[in-house]
């Protein structure tokens, strides 16, 4: 589904790998090793050399916004531009169901973002990332600020995306979570990316 060929990310040797439809890959490595830079490069948020393909067509065939509607990056620290979470979503009935599935109340969609906890904001950001059903999800520590219960709810949502045929690459430092979610793992060590089994 998603294929990288000799993508040259700063601080890493040229990266090549592929992710299949419905596959979940965990990205591991020490802090500052280049995990975020790699995810941003795949989402076309920073200019890099190399080729990235989605379902056979090269990235350059699509405009930047069209690419990012299909290949979605969700940052570890989500950014907001409106006052309330609802302003960050297109109007749709399924929105409330989606946030409820993450353990959030519908009323929280209209609360000021500054009154939500870090974990609640992170779950809102996850809902925002999956809302328009992108083909590939690049999740940078999606459960970093969540407690055990909320983590399970977030993982269920990720699994539903996989079941629907979407691919997921996520960064996590939790070995147990890797076992629960990932089919394969990519490890960055000393500027090299290695593909491994869980």
């Amino acid at each position, binding site marked *: 589904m998603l294929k990288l060929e000799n993508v040259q990310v700063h601080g890493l040797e040229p990266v090549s790998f592929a992710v299949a439809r419905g596959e979940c890959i965990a990205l591991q490595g020490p802090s500052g090793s280049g995990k975020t830079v790699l995810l941003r490069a795949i*989402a*076309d*948020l*920073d*200019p890099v050399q190399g080729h990235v393909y989605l379902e056979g067509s090269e990235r350059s065939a699509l*405009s*930047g*916004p*069209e690419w*990012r*509607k299909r290949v*979605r*990056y*969700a*940052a570890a*620290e*989500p*950014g*907001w*531009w409106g006052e309330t979470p609802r302003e960050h979503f297109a109007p749709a009935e399924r929105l409330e169901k989606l946030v409820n599935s993450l353990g959030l109340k519908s009323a929280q969609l209209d609360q000021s973002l500054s009154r939500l906890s870090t974990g609640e904001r992170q779950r809102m950001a996850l809902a*925002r*990332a999956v809302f*328009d059903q992108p083909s590939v999800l690049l999740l940078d520590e999606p459960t970093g600020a969540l407690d055990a219960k909320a983590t399970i709810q977030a993982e269920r949502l990720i699994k539903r995306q996989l079941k629907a045929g979407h691919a997921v690459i996520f960064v996590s430092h939790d070995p147990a979570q890797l076992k629960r979610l990932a089919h394969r793992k990519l490890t960055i060590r000393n500027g090299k990316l290695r593909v491994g089994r869980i």
Partner: protein
Amino acid sequence: MSQSSYIALSYWDLAMAASLILINGILSVVFRLGIERTLIVAAVRMTVQLMAIGFVLKFIFIQTSPIWTFGLGLCMVFFAGREAMARQTRRYKGWWAYGLGTGTLLFVGLLATLFGVGVIIGPDPWYTPRFVLPILGMVLGNTLTGISLGLETLTTTALRERVAIEARIALGATRFEAMSSATRQALKTGMMPIVNSMAATGIVALPGMMTGQILAGIDPVEATKYQVLITFLIAGGTAFGVFLAVLGGTRLLTDERHRLRLDRLENPAH
């Protein structure tokens, strides 16, 4: 009611007025502000610069040649462009640092001056420097302020709101959608001074040009008409200039793949 004629000033008159600067100097010494030296340099610079431009203008007015008029006009634009660049805390890298402001000032200055002088006032010949150069100067001075404020707001807002802008980009927004908040804020800030000054003109402050004309013996009502014309030219020029510079600046802060490119700004240390 007879109109008073113009009274020429002697250099002695100017020397007497300069004595007022001494008050500032004394204040600086008494309160140990340490600005006496800067004050004297600034006063001398102002006098020398104005005297020099007085002689240059006198020479150019005598020539009444389109080449001399446009030559000096271009110099004014280039200096204004340099000033617009100097006022930025985070400049664009490379040629654009100078090119964006100067290009906008050149376009807007030319347009507003040609419209004001060529179409509305209509002197003969149309390039009469006595009309073209002062009006160009006033349009440039005010547009320069608007552009500088607009670009400064754009870059500082983009830096401050980087995470939110990139979140929008990551969700598939185009560069202008993602930057809309920063762009709007920059446009507003750039246009505010001229809007505020229009509201206060005539009540709080009598504009310099109108005061100059009145002192030179022109009927106050006639002087007012000129001031209204100039103010409209300045307001139009500033709005157009701010619009061009901020939209151009937004384009430069992003690329054709709609990515935010803050790496196109110099580091603050430069």
